[in-house]
């Protein structure tokens, strides 16, 4: 089977190479025979990569330690669940997984666009194949997951205990689906540049793909935060690690693109800008991959055998040079009649939203690469950690939050004073009321507390602005049709999925802002060394250490579990079981925290240490409003689903608009 896996990888590479050349030649020479031949290659490549992936999965599930990769990331005792996820636990498998996802995406794009738009699609397929060829080249010739061990050992080294968590099965695939997904809009953008087909066709063809990729990237980031929160045991969820930054940056740039592209769709403006944004998004996804695989920047996420830095750096440079070159060559064709009715309009607010989003992305990028710059300039390596990002990004983030509230209530084209007064009155009033009401309640002793106060006030302003939009839509619908309030709200959302789905996403973002602010400013923690029966208090909770239990979970895993009784107002409220897990052959034990999560706050318990006399060091955090973030994430997911849902009305409206345009500007043939 391993030979089959290895052979199909080579076959995939050869087929992809042929497909790429054939697609380009078919487009350049208008050769339909070549196109039809090339159009078979995505399916063949997908079959080959899938077979190869199945072979690797089989090796994991059958404990085939003759493969170096399986030996390094699995062992006989590992749960089947984690044997499946070990596939992407290391560099070699993660590259194969990337190739599998990309070939699957490519196959769907191929079926979706078969015999459509033959000016753009062949080039788009060729670009996707170029990216796939790069990955297949690495897998075949540099980090082959089917590399053998001459004398196979009886058991494997095992998966890193930190990766033995259910999020391991969810987080990396979600993030990869986002990363890889941006290859599709990137490929179509490059194809549009090559084919000179630079109207908004490529945007329409890839709008859903962009949304899907954005959705997965967003969820991937949130799942990663959730994983860090429950697994790393430090009471936090985001550490501004270079690899976290690398996943955050494309998300920001893609968000900017999703907003500014609306202006191009509505007014045929900002073609160069939108093109640059989507190309930059893809470049940043590659940058993230480069960081994890180069070992150049220190990160907790870096793979053990991070040796592919030069390959990725070279590929990154080629892609950047090609993108810049293409944009420069096509600049005359990308020029559009950029006109605005007024400085005060939604279009302007979108531009400022782009500025702020890119500002955060740049600050994050700058912080990520500054250690390299410092080493190059001063010869001194420094660290850029959370204090830097928090101080720089928080004020910019607050500006972004304000813009989320301003955008929806400012009119398209031109906002007049009366229009502004009418639309802003309620949100501003709500903001003022919140500011006055919160002032005596919220401490303002430190800069963090002041930021938190501002965040809460802005959250109220933004929420009111969004809910007002829903209310206006609902009332308008009820005025025209005899519908109930709930019915009207549902109909107005359903008939304008893209708009109201976007608003729902914004509500989720507001909750995330509130959750971050609350947990950062008002959290507290304490650490106590206790004997059995001893208690301590934290924020109104009385925590009593009841017992310590050792459990031989498997042949390689021992669990040491502390039992902690939590009392509130004299009554038993909850029983916590934080634990430490010891894995055979691993130096460091792993903390498994226990969390009591409520809407108000999380009670987060860690068994930090224990001794033979059964005394234990217990660390307890009270983290307010953390669940607001996760709720915000699910609301974002729901809003994204609404936005992505196929909309026949929207298609009909677009067709009507195109027909009207054709009537206004008949083509020469019609004349």
């Amino acid at each position: 089977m391993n030979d089959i896996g290895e052979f199909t990888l080579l076959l995939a590479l050869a087929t992809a190479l042929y497909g790429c050349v054939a697609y380009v030649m078919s487009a350049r020479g208008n050769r339909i025979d070549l196109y039809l031949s090339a159009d078979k290659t995505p399916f063949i490549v997908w079959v080959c990569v899938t077979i190869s992936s199945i072979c690797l999965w089989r090796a994991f599930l059958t404990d085939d330690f003759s493969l170096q990769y399986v030996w390094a990331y699995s062992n006989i005792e590992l749960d089947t669940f984690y044997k499946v996820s070990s596939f992407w636990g290391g560099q070699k498998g993660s590259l194969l997984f990337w190739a599998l996802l990309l070939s699957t995406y490519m196959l769907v794009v191929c079926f979706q666009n078969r015999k459509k738009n033959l000016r753009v699609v062949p080039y788009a397929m060729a670009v996707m194949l170029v990216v796939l060829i790069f990955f297949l080249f690495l897998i075949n010739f540099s980090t082959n997951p089917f590399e053998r061990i001459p004398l196979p050992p009886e058991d494997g080294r095992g998966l890193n205990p930190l990766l033995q968590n259910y999020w391991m099965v969810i987080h990396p695939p979600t993030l990869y689906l986002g990363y890889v997904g941006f290859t599709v809009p990137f490929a179509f953008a490059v194809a549009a540049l090559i084919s000179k087909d630079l109207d908004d066709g490529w945007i329409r063809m890839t709008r859903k793909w962009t949304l899907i990729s954005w959705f997965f990237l967003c969820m991937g980031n949130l799942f990663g935060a959730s994983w860090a929160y429950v697994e790393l045991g430090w009471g936090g969820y985001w550490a501004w690690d270079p690899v976290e930054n690398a996943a955050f940056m494309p998300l920001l740039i893609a968000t900017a693109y999703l907003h500014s592209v609306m202006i191009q769709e509505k007014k045929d403006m900002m073609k160069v800008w939108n093109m640059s944004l989507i190309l930059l998004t893809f470049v940043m996804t590659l940058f993230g991959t480069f960081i994890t695989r180069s070992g150049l920047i220190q990160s907790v996420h870096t793979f053990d055998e991070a040796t592919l830095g030069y390959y990725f750096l070279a590929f990154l440079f080629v892609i950047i040079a090609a993108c810049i070159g293409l944009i420069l060559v096509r600049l005359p064709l990308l020029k559009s009649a950029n006109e605005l009715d007024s400085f005060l309009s939604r279009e302007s607010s979108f531009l400022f939203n782009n500025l702020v989003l890119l500002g955060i992305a740049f600050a994050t990028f700058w912080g990520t690469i500054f250690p390299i710059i410092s080493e190059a300039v001063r010869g001194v390596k420094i660290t850029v950690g959370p204090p830097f990002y928090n101080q720089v990004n928080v004020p910019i983030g607050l500006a972004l939050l304000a813009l989320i509230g301003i955008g929806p209530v400012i009119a398209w084209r031109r906002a007049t004073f009366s229009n502004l007064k009418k639309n802003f009155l309620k949100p501003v009033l709500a903001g003022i009321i919140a500011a006055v009401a919160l002032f005596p309640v919220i401490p303002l002793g430190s800069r963090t507390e002041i930021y938190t106060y501002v965040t809460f006030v802005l959250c109220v302003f933004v929420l009111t602005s969004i809910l007002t939009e829903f209310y206006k839509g609902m009332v308008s619908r009820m005025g025209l049709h005899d519908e109930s309030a709930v019915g009207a709200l549902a109909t107005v959302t359903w008939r304008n999925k893209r708009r109201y789905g976007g608003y729902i996403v914004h509500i989720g973002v507001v909750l995330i802002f509130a959750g971050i602010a609350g947990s950062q400013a008002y959290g507290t923690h304490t650490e106590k060394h206790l004997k059995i029966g001893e208690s301590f208090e934290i924020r109104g909770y009385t925590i009593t250490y009841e017992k310590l239990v050792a459990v031989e979970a498997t042949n390689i895993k021992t669990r040491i579990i502390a039992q902690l009784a939590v009392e509130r107002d004299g009554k038993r409220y909850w029983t916590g079981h934080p634990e430490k897990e010891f894995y055979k052959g691993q130096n460091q034990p792993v903390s498994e925290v226990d969390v009591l999560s409520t809407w108000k706050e999380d009670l987060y318990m860690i068994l930090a240490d224990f001794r033979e006399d059964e005394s234990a060091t217990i660390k307890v955090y009270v983290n307010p409003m953390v669940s607001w973030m996760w709720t915000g994430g699910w609301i974002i997911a729901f809003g994204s689903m609404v936005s992505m849902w196929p909309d026949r009305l929207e298609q009909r409206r677009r067709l009507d608009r195109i027909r009207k345009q054709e009537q206004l500007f008949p083509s020469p043939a019609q004349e």
Partner: protein
Amino acid sequence: MQTSKVLMGLFVLVWISMGQVSVVSAGAVLQDLENALMCKCDDKCGKVLINCTCATSDKTRAKFSKMLDSGLTIEQIIKMQVDEYGETVLSAPTKFGFNLTAWVTPFVALIAGGFGVRKVLLAWVGKKDGGESIEVSEPEISEKYSKRLKDELDGIEL
């Protein structure tokens, strides 16, 4: 006038972002120290001390706790750590010399971008205004039709 306002804004932003130094330095508590320093364990975990859960971090915390109890200030302990491990032990760049560029550049870029966006917007609005040489008088539309028009415009893919 506009430039001076923007410069004032830049000054306020930088001032706010730099204010943290005094806040951190003022609170002589272990948590501030843990926030200011990286964990220097053998595994090179790359975590800020406050976020690290490894055995080395526990030992370091205990050591710092004793040092604070002995009367050493945060600044003194940080200096000792920098002397031992170099600047890489700090969780954020210092705010002087070349490292200052780390703090200032994002804001400078943002302000420059703001100027750029403003210039672009003014140019686009100017183009439109320049093109509208013929004034078209707006017909009077009743409130009912105006509302209906707005509703329908709202209905068009936004």
